[in-house]
C-alpha cells in the first residue's frame, strides 16, 4: 500500500474513532437518570397519594406481624423452640426478657408507619386529597400510635410536621402515644363515609381510651360497634416482611420455631376444644427445629389459628369491644353485668371436641370476674399482639384477679433436665426504646 495513502487512512481512522468515542460518551449520557427511587417532591401527586398511605400500612403490618410474634413469646402465648436466627429470637428474648436497647427493627417499622402517614397527612392537606385518602392517612396514623403505645414501655414524641427536624422528646410510659392515637382516630372519623370506616376508627379509639383509663369514652365507642365487625391488618404471601409471621415461623420451611407446649393453651384446648385456640401435633415432626438454651429439643405443638402466610390479623373486632365493655363494667364495680358480657363472648363458640357451645364461666366475686375477664381476653385475642400490653395495663392499675400466664420460672419441665433460662432475667412486658434512638436522640436517656 502506498505509504501516504496508508497514512491518510490511518489518520482518518483515528479521527473516526475519536469522534465515535466523544459521541459515545455523550450519547451514553453523562446526564444520568437512575430509575427506581422516588424523590420527595413527587409524593403528594394525586396518583401517588394512595401509595404513600399504603407505605405507612406496610410498615405497620411489618411491626405487627413480627411484633406480635415476639410478644406471643413474652406473653407466654407460645413456648420458644430454640430457633435464634431466621424466624427465631435470641436466647434472652426466648427466656422472656427484652434486652434494653434491642429490637431497633421493630422500632423503625413503628416510627416509619407514623412518619409516613404524618407525611401523607401534611402533604395531602397542603395540596388537597379526597376524603377517603385523608381518612386512611389519619386512621393508620392512629393505629401506628396505638401499636407503639401497646408495644413500647416509653414514648418518643416529636413534631407531627415531617419537615420539622427537632428531635422528639422522651416520655415515660405510653400515654403520649395513646393521646395522639385518640386525636388521629377522631380526625379520621371526620372523613369517614361508611359505617365500616366509622367502626374501625371508633374501635381503635376505644382501645386507646381504655389505655388512657377513660372507660366512659372506651365503652361509649365500643358500644357503637356490632359483634361481628372485624378490622384486619393485611398480611400477604407476596413478600416475607408482611407474611403472617406467626404462621411462617412454625411452617417448617425450614423453621419450626415455637410450640404451644407448656402454655395455658396446651391444656386449655385439650380440655375445651375452644375453636379460638386450636393447635395440633404431627407424629413426623416430634421437635421444634434447633434447641432451647440449656434445655434441649422442644416437643412441637403448632397453633392452628393462622394457617397460611396470607392469614390477616385482627386489630379491631366486635368481640374485643364487648370485652372492653365488660372491663368498663368491672371498673364501675358491676361485675355481674361484666360476667354477662364475658359469657356472651364465650358461649358463642362451639367446641371443636364436643360440638357444643362452650360452658360459661361462673364467677362468685369481683375478683373472680376480673380473672375471667383476663382469661377471656387471653383466649379471644390469642396471638394478636395484645396480651403483653394487657398485662402491663392491668399491672399499672393494680386490677384484681389472677392471670393464667404460666409460671415457667418455677416449672420443672419434662422431659429432661429443668432449664434455668427463665430465671436468669426478669420477664419483660414491653419493648425498650432501642439503642439506635438513644444513641442519636439527645432527648432520650441512655440505657440505664
Amino acid at each position, binding site marked *: 500500500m502506498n505509504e501516504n495513502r496508508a497514512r491518510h487512512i*490511518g489518520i482518518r481512522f483515528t479521527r473516526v474513532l475519536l469522534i465515535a468515542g466523544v459521541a459515545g460518551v455523550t450519547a451514553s449520557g453523562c446526564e444520568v437518570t437512575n430509575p427506581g427511587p422516588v*424523590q420527595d417532591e413527587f409524593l403528594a401527586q394525586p396518583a401517588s397519594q394512595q401509595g*404513600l398511605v399504603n407505605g405507612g400500612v406496610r410498615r405497620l403490618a411489618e411491626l405487627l406481624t413480627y411484633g406480635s410474634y415476639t410478644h406471643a413469646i413474652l406473653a407466654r402465648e407460645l413456648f420458644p423452640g430454640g430457633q435464634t436466627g431466621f424466624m427465631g429470637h435470641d436466647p434472652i428474648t426466648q427466656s422472656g426478657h427484652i434486652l434494653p436497647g434491642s429490637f431497633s427493627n421493630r422500632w423503625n417499622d413503628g416510627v416509619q408507619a407514623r412518619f409516613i402517614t404524618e407525611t401523607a397527612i401534611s402533604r395531602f392537606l397542603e395540596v388537597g386529597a379526597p376524603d377517603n385518602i385523608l381518612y386512611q392517612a389519619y386512621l393508620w396514623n392512629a393505629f401506628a400510635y396505638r401499636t407503639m403505645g401497646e408495644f413500647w414501655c416509653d414514648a418518643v414524641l416529636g413534631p407531627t410536621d415531617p419537615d420539622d427536624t427537632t428531635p422528639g422528646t422522651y416520655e415515660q410510659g405510653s400515654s403520649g402515644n395513646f393521646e395522639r392515637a385518640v386525636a388521629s382516630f377522631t380526625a379520621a372519623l371526620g372523613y369517614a363515609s361508611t359505617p365500616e370506616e366509622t367502626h374501625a376508627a371508633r374501635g381503635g379509639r376505644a382501645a386507646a381510651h381504655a389505655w388512657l383509663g377513660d372507660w366512659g369514652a372506651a365503652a361509649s365507642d365500643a358500644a357503637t360497634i356490632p359483634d361481628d365487625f372485624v378490622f384486619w391488618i393485611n398480611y400477604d404471601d407476596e413478600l416475607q416482611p408482611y407474611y403472617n409471621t406467626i404462621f411462617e415461623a412454625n411452617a417448617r420451611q425450614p423453621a419450626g420455631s415455637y410450640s404451644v407446649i407448656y402454655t395455658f393453651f396446651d391444656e386449655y384446648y385439650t380440655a375445651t376444644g375452644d375453636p379460638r385456640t386450636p393447635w395440633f401435633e404431627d407424629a413426623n415432626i416430634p421437635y421444634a427445629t434447633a434447641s432451647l438454651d440449656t434445655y434441649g429439643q422442644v416437643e412441637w405443638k403448632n397453633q392452628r389459628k393462622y394457617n397460611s402466610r396470607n392469614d390477616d390479623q385482627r386489630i379491631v373486632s366486635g368481640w374485643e369491644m364487648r370485652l372492653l365493655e365488660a372491663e368498663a363494667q368491672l371498673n364501675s364495680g358491676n361485675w355481674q353485668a361484666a360476667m354477662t358480657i364475658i359469657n356472651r363472648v364465650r358461649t358463642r363458640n362451639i367446641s371443636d371436641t364436643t360440638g357444643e357451645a362452650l360452658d360459661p364461666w361462673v364467677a362468685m366475686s369481683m375478683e373472680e370476674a376480673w380473672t375471667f375477664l383476663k382469661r377471656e381476653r387471653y383466649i379471644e385475642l390469642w396471638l394478636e399482639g395484645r396480651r403483653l400490653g394487657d398485662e402491663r395495663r392491668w399491672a399499672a392499675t393494680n386490677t384484681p384477679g389472677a392471670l393464667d400466664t404460666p409460671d415457667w420460672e418455677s416449672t420443672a419441665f419434662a422431659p429432661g433436665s429443668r432449664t434455668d433460662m427463665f430465671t436468669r432475667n426478669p420477664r419483660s412486658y414491653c419493648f425498650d426504646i432501642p439503642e*439506635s434512638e438513644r444513641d442519636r436522640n439527645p432527648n432520650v436517656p441512655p440505657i440505664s
Partner: protein
Amino acid sequence: MMSRLSPQFSRRSRAFRRFGKGGLGVPVVAGLLLLASAPAHAQNGRVTGVVTDAQSGAPLGEVQVYMVGSTLGTLTRSNGRYLILNVPPGSYELRSERIGFQTLTESVDVPADGTVTMDFAMSTEALGLDEIVVTGAAGAARRREIGNAIAQINLADVPERQVNVSELLQASAPGVHVIGGSSEPAQGKQIRLRGNSSVSMSNQPIIYVDGVRIMDDAFPRVETPGTGLGRPALITVTPLDMINPNDIERIEVIKGSAATTLYGTEASAGVIQVFTKRGSAGAPVWTAEIQQGTGWMQPFGAPGGDFIQMEHYMRDAWWGGGYEGGQYAPDCVTDDDRWQGVNASPQGACSWPGSVWFQNYLLSVRGGGQNLQYFISGQYQDDSYVLANDELEKYNFRGNFTITPVEDLQIQWNTGYTSQWLSGTPSGNNAEGIQLNAFRQERNYVGSADPREIGKLLEYEFNQTNERLNSGITLTYTPQARLTNRFTFGYDYSNQEGQNQRNFGFFLKPLGSRTNDTFQRRVLTFDYVGTFNLPVTSTINSNFSWGGQAIGDSEVRLRLLGEDFPGAAEPTVSSAAIKVAEEDREKVWNAGFFFQNVFDISNKYFVTGGIRVDGNSAFGSGFGLQVYPKVSGTWVISDEDFWDPGYGAIKLRAAYGQSGRAPGAFDAVRTWEPSGYAGTPAFTPENLGNPDLGPEVTREWEVGFDGTWLDDRLRATFTYFDQRTTDALMSVSAIPSQGFTQSQLENVGTVDNSGVELQLDATLFQSSNFSVDAGLGIATTNSNVVSLCKGETEPSDVVLARDPNAKCIDRFFDLGGWIIEGQQLPVEMGRRVINRDEIAPPQFDDDPYTPAAPGRTGENVIIGPQLPTRIITPTLALRLPSNILLSARGEYLAGHVQYVNEISISRSVRSPLCFPWYVSPKTSIELKSETPAIWRERCTPGFGRDYWFDADYFKLRHVSLTVPVDAIFPESVSNATLTATLSNFYDWFREIPWYDPESLGNSPALDDGIGGQTERVPSPATFRMSVRVTF
C-alpha cells in the same frame, strides 16, 4: 455398602468425561506431537545457539530469540538452547529478549543449507530502571522516573501454575493482601492494598485490563427476592478470577493515592492493571498445556471432630473409588466414633475425604508479520470440588491483535471472553446449608443427625453462569517523534444468571421454589492521553502529558422468585403459584482530565508534577468537581559520579498525591422506595439524602528506595507510606424516630493509615548448575480513626445526625467491625475473659463504653484490629542441574483477632470447639469440672460470649517443582516443562484451635468486611501437575 444420597447432583453435560480419567489429555498430547513434527524445508539455513545468564552462567529458558524484521524466531529450551529452522540465506539482526534481562542484538549471516551458531550471555537489568511501566503514569514511563512504589508481577517469573489471578497476587508483593479462601468452586477473594483507608466505601482496588476498566468488585451473591431464604451456595465470583492467568504477561500494582492520582475519584484503594500477552513478529509459536490436579481436605475441626461431621457430604477420593460426590459411607469411621476411641471400623477406615479433580487445557499461539501481530488463546477447565454438588466448567478465549497500518499509527485490539458454569452445594450459615445442619447434628433444621436425612439438602439445586467480555481498542498515533497520542475505548460486560431451585417434593419445601437472579454490568472506558517531549536544555528534558477519561458504569439486576409449583415438571418461575420480582438499575459516570509534567534532569533526577480534575454523577448536576494534585521525585543516586559502583545501584524516590472515592448513585438525594404492599403500590422512606455530599479524599506521601548490591545478588525495595483520608464518607444513622431509619453517607471524620513495605531478595549461591534464591517481604499497616467529627472539630461525644449543630458522630459498626476514634480501622469488640486459665467462673474486662446492663457485662471491650497489621512473605527457590527448579512461597499474617463460633452454642448445640471440655461430648453439654474460665465462657450457652482468638497464622501457599522435559520431544518443540505444585498444604495457627481463619462469612468476595466466620468448609490442600509445550 455404599448408598447414594442423591441420584442427581448436576445437570450439565458429561460429554468431556467420556475421555475417562485422562480427560482430554491423551488426544491433545497426540495432536501436539503431530503438529510439532512438521518437516523442515530444504535449501534454507538454520540458526542455533545457547542463551545463558551472564552472572551465573546458567542456561536461560523461555528467551525469545528472533530475526529482527522477519517472522522467524523461537523460544529457548530449558537448557538455553534454541534452533531457528528454515531461515532463507541472508544477513540478519538476531535478537534475544526476556523480561528482566537486557536485550541483546547480534548480526548473523545465514548461508544456504548451513548452520550459524550464536550464543548470548544475558545480564539482568540493575533495578530494571529502564523497564517500561504504565500504571499510574501518563502514557508509559521508565521505572527510573516513577516516584512511587510499583509492584510488577511477571508471569514468566512465577514458578507455580495458578488457576486464578487472586492466588497469583497472594503473597506476591508487600502491601498486597488477598483475603479469603473456601472450598467452593470459583469462590472469589477480596484484595486490600495497604489495608483499609475507607470506612463506608469500597476498599477494593480498581482493576484495568490492557487499559480498559473492568468490573472490579465481585458479582453479587445469588439471592431470593423478598425473603431471607434462598442463599444456599453463597458463592461470590470475581471478574478478576475469570481471567485466564496464562493469558497474562504481567500485572502492575500501585497501592496508594501517591501513585493513583491520575485515576482520580475511585482510585484511593489502589489500582491493579493486568497486561495480557501480545503477538510478536515471527513464525507462529504454539503453547499447549495440560493441567491435572487433585485436592483433599485436611482436618479443620477440633480433636474428636476432625471434619465436623462433614465427611459424608464430601467427594470421596477418586483414586480410592472413582465415584462422584454425594456418597454416604455409613460403615466407615465418623467423628463420633473417633471421639469414642474407635480408630477403625470392621469395614475399614473412611477414605480420605473431600478429594477434588481439576482439569485445565490451554492452547495459545502468537506470531505475525510487521503490520499485524496476534496472540490467540483458548482454555477449557473442568473441576469438581470438595462438596458433593460443587463443580465448575469454564471456557476462556482471547484474541489480541497489534496492527500497524502505517509507521506512526498502532492499533491494539484486545478481546477476552470467559464463560463459566458452576454448580454449588447448599452451604454456609443458612438454614438449608449442609454445613450448618451437619455441624449442629440433631439440633438442626432437618431435625436429625442422620447423614441420610441431612443429605436430602443436596437436592437443593444451585446453578450459576457467569459470562464476561472485555474488549478494548487502543490507538497510538505518533505523528512526530516527540508527540504521542493514545486513545482507548473499552467495553467490559459482565453477566451472571443464578438459579436456586427446590424441586417439587423437596422435603423442606414440598411445593418447591425457584429463584432466578440475573445481574448485568457494563463498564465503558474512554481514555485519551497525549504526551509531548520537549528538550529544555541539553540536560533537561520535559515530558508534558495531558488527557481525559470517562468511565461509565451501569448495572441491572433482576430477581425473580416463584413458589409452589403444580407438579413435578421442570419448573420455571412462570409456572409457580406465587411470583415475586425485583428490578434494580443504576448508572454512574465518572469523568476527569489531567495535566502532568515530568522533568528529566541528566537522566538521574526526575521531578513530576500533575493535577487531576474529576467529576462524578453521584453528586448531581454539579458533578462535584474535585481537584487532586500529585508531585514526585526520583534520584538515581548510583548514577552520580561520586558513587562508587561497589556501593551498588540505588534509586531514591518520594511521592505525594491525592485521590478519592465517590459515594453511590443515590446518596446525595432524598428518596423514597417504591416498595409495594400486598399487591398495591406503596412508598417507604429510603434515603435521607445529603446535597452537600462530596467525595472523600485520601492524600498520601511515600518515600523509599530501590537498590541492588553485590552484582545484583542482593536486591531490596523499601517504602514508607503515610495516608490521611479527610472528609471520610461514613454511614451516619439518623434519629430513627424522625422517619428515615437508614444510615446516610456524610463527609465526616479523618482516618490515618501508615506502614512500611520491604522486599528483600538475595541470591545466596549461584553457579551454572545450582543456585539458591531467598526472598522476604515485610509489610505493616497501622490505621487510626483520628476523628469522627466534621472538619477540624474536636472529638466529642455528641451524636446528632440531623441537628444542624452536630459535628461529631459516635462509634458505629461498619466494615464488619467497629469504627472508634483512636482505634484501628476497624476493631472488633466483645467480651474478654481476664482470668482465662483459672479453674473458676469467668471474670470480664470492664466495659469502657456501655454501662453494664443485665446479661451484658463487659460486652463492649475492644479486642483488636480486624485486619492483619503485619504480613511477612518468605520465598525460597532452588535451581538444580538441568534447570530443575524447586520453589516455595509462604505467608505469615499477624496482629489481628478473629471471631470463631460456627456452632450455635447459644442454643445448646454441642460444639466440636468444646469437645475437649464436655464430660460426654456425644450427648451432653455438661462441662468438666477442670474447665478453665475461658472455655467455661465459650462453651456455656448464653449471649455474647468470648469467641475471640489471636488470629496470627502462617500458610505455606505453594511448593512448586519445575522440571524441563524438552528432551522427550522432537527438536521442533522449543520448550517443554513439567510443573508440580502443592498448595495450601501446611499451616500453623497461633491460637485458633481449629478451622481456618481465611474462611469468611456469607459473601466472601464482597466488600462488606471480613470479620466473622460462618459455617463453611475451608480450602482443601491441592496438588496440580502441568505439562506445557511450546513449539
